């Protein structure tokens, strides 16, 4: 899952990036409104954490531009402006959630998780696929009640497939969502992770669809 952090305070930006990376996200950051607006428009993100008081272009304008350009990724506004009329303005500009500074990192992580889960259309914090259960709150995967040992990259691939269970997910989609933009797209590491996941999951869980990519199938 890729998350964009647009925050001009370098210390806070670093804290956010570190904590989100620790929680298993691929994180990219921008420190001004113009860069943030550009990244959000050309790259694929599963969620955005957006400050409002940004240099060069304020957060509300950035958000409005994204929405006008048809970008639908969930956006969490993180700001010191916590009056209700400001929240109204933020939500009406197209934000999906609003968190006022100062904030607790756990709360921010919980909100980002919920945004990604809801954007994929899941109402519950637990995503279930047959015997496999992903707890989005803890980032743990269990198979028939037993915790699966997964590396962070394996977890990212599985988590993306779980969020989009039953759908065909292309290799390009997977690369977009689990790596940052500097990643070399020609390498075959995705195949390696999928192969490892297949060994840990019930047989036939991950189908290969020729020319399209992969699909996680869930027995009813």
């Amino acid at each position, binding site marked *: 899952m890729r998350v964009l952090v647009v925050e001009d305070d370098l210390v806070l930006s670093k804290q956010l990036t570190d904590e989100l990376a620790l929680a298993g996200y691929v994180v990219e950051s921008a420190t001004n409104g113009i860069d943030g607006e550009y990244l959000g428009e050309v790259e694929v993100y599963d969620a955005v954490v957006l400050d409002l008081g940004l240099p060069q272009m304020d957060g509300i304008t950035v958000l409005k531009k994204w929405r006008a350009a048809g970008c639908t990724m969930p956006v969490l506004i993180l700001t010191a402006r*916590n*009056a*209700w*009329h400001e*929240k*109204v303005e933020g*939500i*009406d500009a197209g*934000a*999906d*959630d*609003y968190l006022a500074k*100062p904030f607790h990192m756990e*709360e921010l992580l919980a909100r980002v998780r*919920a945004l990604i889960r*809801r954007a994929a259309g899941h*109402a519950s914090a637990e995503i279930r696929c047959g015997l496999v259960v992903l707890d989005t709150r803890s980032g743990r995967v269990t198979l028939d009640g037993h915790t699966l040992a997964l590396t962070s990259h394996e977890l990212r691939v599985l988590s993306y497939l779980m969020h989009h269970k039953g759908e065909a997910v292309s290799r390009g989609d997977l690369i977009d969502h689990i790596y940052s933009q500097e990643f070399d797209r020609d390498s075959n590491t995705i195949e390696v992770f999928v192969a490892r996941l297949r060994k840990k999951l019930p047989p036939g869980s991950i189908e290969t669809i020729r020319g399209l990519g992969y699909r996680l199938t869930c027995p009813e």
Partner: protein
Amino acid sequence: MRRWGLSGRSLRIRLLAGTLAWIVVTIAIAGWGLAGLFHRHVAEQFRVGLESHLEQLTANLAIDQNGKAYLTTPLSDPRLGRPNAGLYWQIDRLDSRQALKKRGVLRSRSLWDHVLLVPDDAPSDGVIHQHRVEGPGGLPLEMIERVVYPAERPEQPLRLIIAADASLIAEPVDRFRGLLAWSLGTLGLGLVIGVIVQVLVGLRPLGDLRKALAAVHEGHAQGIGGTFPREIQPLVDDFNEVLAYNARILSHARTQAGNLAHAVKTPLAILANAAVRRDPQLPQLVAEQIALAQEQVDYHLARSRAAAAVTTPGTSCPVKPVLQALIRVMERLYADKKLTATLSDTASGLVFRGEQQDLHEMLGNVLDNAWKWAASRVDISSQSDADWLTVLIDDDGPGLPPERREAVLARGVRADERVPGSGLGLAIVSDLAQLYGGSVILDTSPLGGLRLRLRLPAAHKHPRIR
């Protein structure tokens, strides 16, 4: 106003220019009119004189047996006897068809050897014609003529002519014009001086006002003192009110800045001391003190916003759009909670007498609280009478036991530590409502949870257009 070309210039110049133009135009018209009237009067008098001479000439005219015309007695005016004296008569003989037969059969002595060449226009019996002809020495003459048919020889009509120097009209008219120009000029000058004095005296209060303003700008005075004419006094009073209002805002801002500094500095001091002493409890202390500082800052910010708004007169905002916007926000912020929110139609048309931001702040906190606790639904309805409106927010949550209700409205008390929040929400609402003279009442809802009544001043349904 730019098209007048006087915008931005002084009132004095505007008034002077306007009045001076008016004076010049009026005097010019008066002069032209008077001169015209006088000229007509002189010309009429002149003609009356000529006509009386013509009558005398007619009366004194006689015809002898040979058919020759002669005067029974000479005309009385002595000028007629002196050559080139300026007054003349002449008699021409006409034939029966009124064509000229002989010019100057009889002439006044004043004409000497000059014969008047009168145009042949044959006036009918009894009609007097007037012409301008050339007299002795080439001077222009005004003359009148008539044709008479003597009883003795009616077939031999005679044309009787009286003429006088045209300068007899022009001279008095010119003299009068000169006199008129002098008197009108004097009148105009008097008026201009009057206007200048009037403008200077009339506009002096504005000059005084400017001096008073300068004194305020330079900090010598707190407001504009003294009394001003009735037309300006309201402006001065309003300005003094704005100055006083600014002073109040400033002192209010200073108080708030002090409060905020206090709210932040105390926790900072505690943390600094703990850091110096390498207190092992530091992380916990940091968390505690930050929470405390945040609570204080939120409280003072909300209060300062409201206090500023309450002293601003004449603001109002409709309630329903604010409720709708906040419901949208709640549905986003509590997206995982599948609540049914209903907004009663009674809210339409309600107008709150106060700042929109404060209404957002109050209703935002109230709705936030309702969404936080509700199990499945929140109902929003309203009541109103002439000067007050009440918004009722019902939820089907656990409610609040009566003995705790007063406490949650007090500052910084949280009814339940399980739900995140600063614990100030309802206290801020209560504070703001009280600043507006309203109130917050907590009750048991028919839905089973909490009912909150927010009573606020109402504005007229159709706010005045300002």
